[in-house]
């Protein structure tokens, strides 16, 4: 299963490296969202800096939806989905592979946004370990749920509007946990973030497990 996951992950990342869609489209979108928030909330750094964590994670969440849609869009060309099904790869492996690829893309995105948040909102970056830990755990959860729901809406004509509707309310705990963890880190009290990191980790493990089991049946009738 892990071998299949590595194969699929590699394939997805290679497609991304060649087409650079995430880099050229999703990352600029995320940066634009940050700028939009800045415009909406006003240039006063006293307002933006405390809100930086929340705004960061909302931007990540919105970008994650796009990244997941892209991940499944590459499968719809040339009946690649059928090819995937017939290839004999373990569906759990396909799930983990796609989740890992989307996760990697999101981590790169988060790196860029971290710099953006520091520059645009004047957030003082500290507690780096907690910041990174939250990013890893939250991204794992987002990727897991995202790929699962991507499979659920793939092949449907309304998938572009359905996927965000299904995904966004579901990942509220991730948004909450990641924002709080980042808040503690940025405020200089990273030790208080422990519980939130645990919440993120539990969510990630839970939904990666659910996805591993549920992805197969969903893929079969896509």
């Amino acid at each position: 299963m892990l071998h299949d996951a590595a194969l699929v992950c590699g394939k997805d990342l290679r497609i991304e490296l060649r087409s650079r869609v995430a880099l050229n489209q999703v990352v600029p979108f995320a940066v634009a969202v940050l700028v939009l928030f800045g415009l909406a909330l006003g240039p006063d750094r006293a307002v933006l800096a405390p809100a930086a964590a929340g705004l960061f994670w909302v931007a990540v969440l919105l970008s994650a939806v796009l990244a997941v849609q892209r991940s499944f869009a590459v499968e719809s060309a040339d009946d690649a989905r059928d090819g995937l099904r017939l290839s004999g790869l373990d569906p759990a492996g396909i799930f983990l592979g796609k989740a890992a690829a989307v996760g990697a893309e999101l981590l790169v995105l988060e790196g860029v946004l971290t710099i953006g948040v520091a520059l645009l909102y004047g957030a003082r970056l500290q507690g780096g370990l907690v910041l990174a830990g939250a990013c890893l755990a939250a991204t794992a959860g987002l990727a897991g749920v995202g790929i699962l729901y991507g499979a659920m809406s793939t092949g449907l004509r309304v998938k572009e509007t359905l996927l965000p509707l299904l995904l966004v309310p579901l990942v509220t705990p991730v948004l909450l946990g990641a924002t709080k963890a980042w808040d503690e880190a940025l405020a200089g009290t990273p030790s208080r973030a422990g519980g939130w990191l645990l919440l993120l980790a539990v969510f990630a493990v839970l939904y990666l497990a659910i996805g591993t089991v549920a992805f197969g049946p969903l893929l079969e009738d896509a």
Partner: protein
Amino acid sequence: MTTVLAPAPVRSGTRSGRWRVVAVRVVGAAALAGVVLTVWLGLWVTPQAVGFGNLVRLLYIHPPMAWVAFLAYGVASLASLLYLWPRTRHRRYDRLAGASAEVGVVFTGLTLVSGSIWGRPTWGTYWVWDPLLTSTAILFVLYLGYLALRRVPGDPEVVARRAAVAALVAFVDVPIVYFSVSWWRSLHQPPTIDFTGRHLYVHGSMAWTLLLGFVSFTLCYVWLMAHRYRLAALRDAEADAGLSAAIEERRAEAG
């Protein structure tokens, strides 16, 4: 009785079919009677509460709404599980899940509205980020997503299976949402404002009315479910009949 309300074509004329119709009628009558009684008791007979005044009268409405909302969501999740489980896979569970979700979304919306109406005079705002109310709001959106997924055109079995998975994923998520929101709230706000009305001293006629409220609205749920389920069964039968007719036409064309 009038023929317009004849039992569903699937089980027309059988004894169990007629009993089912009678049972639903009885439940409906009981629900109506219960609700009317609750309203009468709630608005006029029961006394005002210490500190809350007349606002306590909303207590007979709001908690029952919330209870039914979560009951409906539990039923939908259980039905989805039964549908996915190979040994109990049957379309009736899919219909049950869909019916419960549609009825549930109505009650969830009413929970939010009644909670909001309770909140305005009590805490001064229409919305406080109370863990229970916030989780209910998320549940509301999850329901809407589920119902949207069910409406997607396509092979009914595929849609049913996807919807069932979505229902179960949401079922697992709601406790996590509730937990994370209540933790978030406990950090921000020292509990000086009591959101749940725990300090409300409910006794005597108030307690009985509250109980009646719970029972009556649960009966409403059952009655609404029975009708929504029947509607789903009729629609499925219609779709199947349409499919059979189309197949017959193809066969006739082929000669």
